[in-house]
C-alpha cells in the first residue's frame, strides 16, 4: 500500500521515468480514473454550490413567506418552497454548508485522533495493547445514546461558548469523530508496525533520531496514502451519519436545515411535492458518491503497483 513498496515486474516504465515529485505521479494516475475525475468535478461543484451559491442567490433561507408556501419550481423559487414559504434553493445551499462542513470537520477530527492513536500504538510497544483495547471499546459503543448524552452534558457550556449554531455543530461533529476514528487507527497501526521494521526507520533510529522526529519525518509520510483514503471515506460516512441522525430526529434540530433534516422534514410531503425529498436526497447521495469515487481514484493512484497502467 505504501509508495516504497516494491515495483511490480510488469511496470517497465517505472524505471525509465525521470524522478519527480511523487504527487505528480499520483495526479497522473488519478486523472485517468474517469470516475474519480467526475467525482472530483461533482464534489467541487457541490462545494461551489454551498459556498459561492449563497453569494449569487442572495435569499435568506429563514425568510418566511406564507403567501407562497409549498410552491413548485418557478423563476422566483427555482426549487420551490417549503411549508412556510422558505426558499428551498437557499435552504439547500445553507443546509449543504452544514452537511459538508460536518463531513469535513468530523473527518478531519476523526483522522487526527485515529492517526495519533494508530501511530502511537504501532510505534511504541507499551501503548499498543491498551490503545488497541481502547479501539475495540469504542467500536462497541453505540453512537446514538452517546450523542444524546453528549448533547445533554455539553450543550449548555458549548452554546454559551460558541452560540447555539456552533454549539450543536461542534457537538455533532465531535460525536461523529469520536465514534469513527477506529478504522483509521487500526489501519495506521498496522502500517506503522510494518514500517518500523523497515531499513530506513531502523537506520534513523540507529543514529539516534528522536522518536517524535522519526514519526514525523519517516513514519507519517509513509502512512499518508491509507490516511488519504480513510479521509475520503470519513467524509462520506460523516455526511451519511449526520443525515441519518437528523433523519432519526436526533441530529440537528428542525430550525437547522441540513440536508438530512430537510429530507426528514420533506418525507411526509413526498407524494405532493416529491422534490422536497428528491433534492436533498440527491444532494446527499451525489456528495457521498463523488467523495467515494474520489477515494477510489486516490486508492488506485496511491497504489504504486497499479500506477501507470
Amino acid at each position, binding site marked *: 500500500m505504501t509508495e516504497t513498496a516494491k515495483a511490480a515486474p510488469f511496470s517497465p516504465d517505472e524505471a525509465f521515468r525521470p524522478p519527480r515529485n511523487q504527487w505528480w505521479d499520483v495526479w497522473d494516475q488519478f486523472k485517468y480514473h474517469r470516475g474519480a475525475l467526475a467525482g472530483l468535478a461533482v464534489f467541487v461543484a457541490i462545494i461551489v454550490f454551498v459556498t459561492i451559491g449563497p453569494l449569487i442567490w442572495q435569499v435568506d433561507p*429563514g425568510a*418566511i413567506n406564507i403567501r407562497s408556501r409549498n410552491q413548485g419550481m418557478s423563476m422566483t423559487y427555482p426549487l420551490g418552497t417549503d*411549508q412556510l414559504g422558505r426558499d428551498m434553493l437557499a435552504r439547500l445551499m445553507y443546509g449543504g454548508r452544514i452537511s459538508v462542513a460536518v463531513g469535513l470537520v468530523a473527518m478531519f477530527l476523526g483522522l487526527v485522533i485515529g492517526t495519533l492513536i494508530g501511530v502511537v500504538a504501532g510505534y511504541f510497544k507499551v501503548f499498543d495493547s491498551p490503545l488497541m483495547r481502547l479501539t475495540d471499546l469504542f467500536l462497541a459503543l453505540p453512537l446514538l445514546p452517546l450523542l*444524546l448524552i453528549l448533547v445533554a452534558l455539553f450543550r*449548555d457550556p458549548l452554546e454559551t461558548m460558541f452560540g*447555539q449554531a456552533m454549539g450543536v455543530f461542534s457537538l455533532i461533529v465531535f460525536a461523529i469523530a469520536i465514534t469513527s476514528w477506529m478504522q483509521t487507527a487500526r489501519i495506521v497501526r498496522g502500517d506503522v508496525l510494518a514500517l518500523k521494521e523497515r531499513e530506513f526507520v531502523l537506520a534513523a533510529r540507529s543514529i539516534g533520531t528522536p522518536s517524535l522526529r522519526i514519526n514525523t519525518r519517516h513514519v507519517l509520510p509513509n502512512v499518508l496514502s491509507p490516511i488519504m483514503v480513510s479521509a475520503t471515506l470519513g467524509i462520506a460516512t460523516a455526511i451519511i451519519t449526520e443525515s441519518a441522525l437528523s433523519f432519526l430526529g436526533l441530529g440537528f434540530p428542525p430550525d437547522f436545515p441540513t440536508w438530512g433534516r430537510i429530507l426528514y422534514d420533506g418525507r*411526509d410531503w413526498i407524494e405532493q411535492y416529491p422534490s422536497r425529498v428528491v433534492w436533498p436526497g440527491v444532494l446527499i447521495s451525489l456528495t457521498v458518491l463523488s467523495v467515494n469515487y474520489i477515494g477510489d481514484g486516490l486508492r488506485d493512484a496511491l497504489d504504486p503497483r497499479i500506477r501507470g497502467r
Partner: protein
Amino acid sequence: MTTRTVLLGTAAALVLAPASAMAERERGSSGHLNIIYWQAVSTMNPYLSGGTKEMNAASVVLEPLARFDNLGELTPWLVDEIPTLENGGVAEDLKSITWKLTEGLLWSDGTPVTSADVVFSYEYCTHPEGGCSYRDRYAGIEQVEAVDDLTVTVHFEDVTPNPYLPFVGAGSVIIQRAQFQDCLGARAPECTDANFAPIGTGPYVVSNFRPNDVIEFVANENYRVPTQPYFETVTWAGGGDAMGAARAVFQTGEMDYAWNLQLAPEVIEQMEAGGRGELLVDFGPLMERIELNFTDPSPDLPDGERGTREHPHPILSDIRVREALSRAIDRELLTEIGFGPMGMATCNFIVAPPAMASPNNDNCLVQDIDRANELLDEAGWERGADGIRVKDGQRLELLFQTSTNAVRQDFQALIQADWREIGVDTRLRNIDAGVFFGSDPGSNDTYLKFFADAQMYASLFEGTDPTPHLEQRRCGREPQPSTQWQGQNINRYCNPEYDELWAELNREADPDRRQELVIALNDMFVQDYAHLPLVARGRVSAASTTVGGIVMNVWDSEHWNQAEWYRIEE
C-alpha cells in the same frame, strides 16, 4: 342459568338504538379488525404506564365503573346508574360516594365481578411502592369499602365536590383481584403475564401480546352484551411512523384504524380525498400555548435564585409587554399551517368542555400589530437602529424554547417573525422532548425549570373537570429549588385574587356556579397575559370507510365503544 337470563335482559336494555336496528349483526360477525398505533403499546396495564396509547389499548379489556361519553357526559359502564346527590349515591356532606355494580357481570375467565375487585383496584394503585400512574385519581381517599358483593363506597378525607375521579374514565380501571393479588407494590412489574394479558370485563381478551410491537385480541365470550363485539378478532399493530400509519389506512387499506396522526394538514387532507378512509377529529382540553416567565432566568443569578420569584422578570413583568407579545401573534395562521382542520385558534386557558370555555377573549384571534406596537411604545420600549426595541440600554430580546418537533419549530419561526415585526428579537432554542418534559431536577433544560423567557408546549387535563388544572396556577405551586423544581405553575404566576376564586371553586358543588367560576378564573388568567394560548388541538385518528360504529371520544379512550364497531358490507 339464572345469571345468564338476567344478563341477557340487562344487555338488551343497554344496546343502543343503531345496534338494535341492525338486529342481524352478531358477536364476531364482522370478522377481523386491523388497528395501527405508530407508537406501539408497551403494556396492557394502564396503571403501570400512564401513556395514552396504553390506556387506549387497555380500554377494550379493562373497564372503569363509569366512562365519559363523546359529549363528556358521565355514562354508567359497569354500574346501572351514576350515583348523584339526587339519587342518594353521593352523600349530603360530599364526603362519600356509593357505586352499585351491575348484577351478573363476569370477568372474561367466567368468574363474577365483585366489590372486592373494586377495592383491590384501589389498593393496587395506591400501594406506596407501586409507582401507579393514576395514583392521583385516588388521592384524598380515606377508605374504599365493600359494603356487599356488589356495592362499594368511597370515603373521602375531605369535602369532595367532584367525587367522579376514582374508578371513572379509561385510566382508573377495575382489575381482577384473583389475577393481581400477588402483584402489589414493588412486585407489580414481576407479574408480566398479568400485565400483558389482564383479565377484564371489556369486549376483548388478549390472545397474544408483544410489547412495543403487536397485540392480538379475540372477542370476550363472557362479554355482557351477547351480540357484541362485532369484530371477532383484532390485530393492534405498533411501530413505524405517523405517515406510514396514515398511508396504511388512506392508501393501501392495510389498516382499518390509525391513531394520533399528527401530520401536515395538507398532506392528510389530500390523503383523505382518496376516499378510502376518513379523518376523525374532536376537540378536548389539549391546548398549545406559550408560557411567559414571570421570573428572571438569567444565568448570571446564583443557583437557587435563578428562575425564582425573588427576581421578577426584567421585561415580562410588565403586562403591556405580555399583551403586545400576544397581540402580535397570528393565531389563525399558526393553526392553518400547523394543524389545519385538526386545530382551532384559541385565546382561552380552559378550551373544553364547550360549556366551560370562556366566550370573553376572542379579541386576540386577530393579529393586531398596531396595538402591539402602541403597547410597547407606552411601556417605554423605543425602536433602536436595527429595529429592535431598547429601554434603559436593554434590548428587547427573548429566549424562546420548546421541545424538538417539526410543527413547534415552524411555530417558533413564525412567531419569531411576528415578534420581529414589533421590534422584539427572539432567540430560538429547542430541546429533545425526553429531556424537556422530564422532571429530572439535575437538568437545566426541563420545562419545569423554565430557564428561558418564553416556552411553548401543549397541556391538558383528564376528564371534564378543570379544577385541578386551574389549581396549578396558584401561588406557591411554582417549581422552585425548595420543591426540587417540582410544581405545575410553570410561569410562576401569583395572584391572590385568583387563589381566592379557586378556593371557592374547590368548595362549590353546584354545576352552574362551578361553570361561572371556571370561566372567571380562565378570564383572569388569560387577561393577565400570563400565558398565551395559541391553538386548541384536536385528537386525530383515521378510520377506514369500511368500518362503522366508530364514535370519536376525547374525554375517554377513543376505543370506548369498540364493541359496537362493525364492518360495513359492500
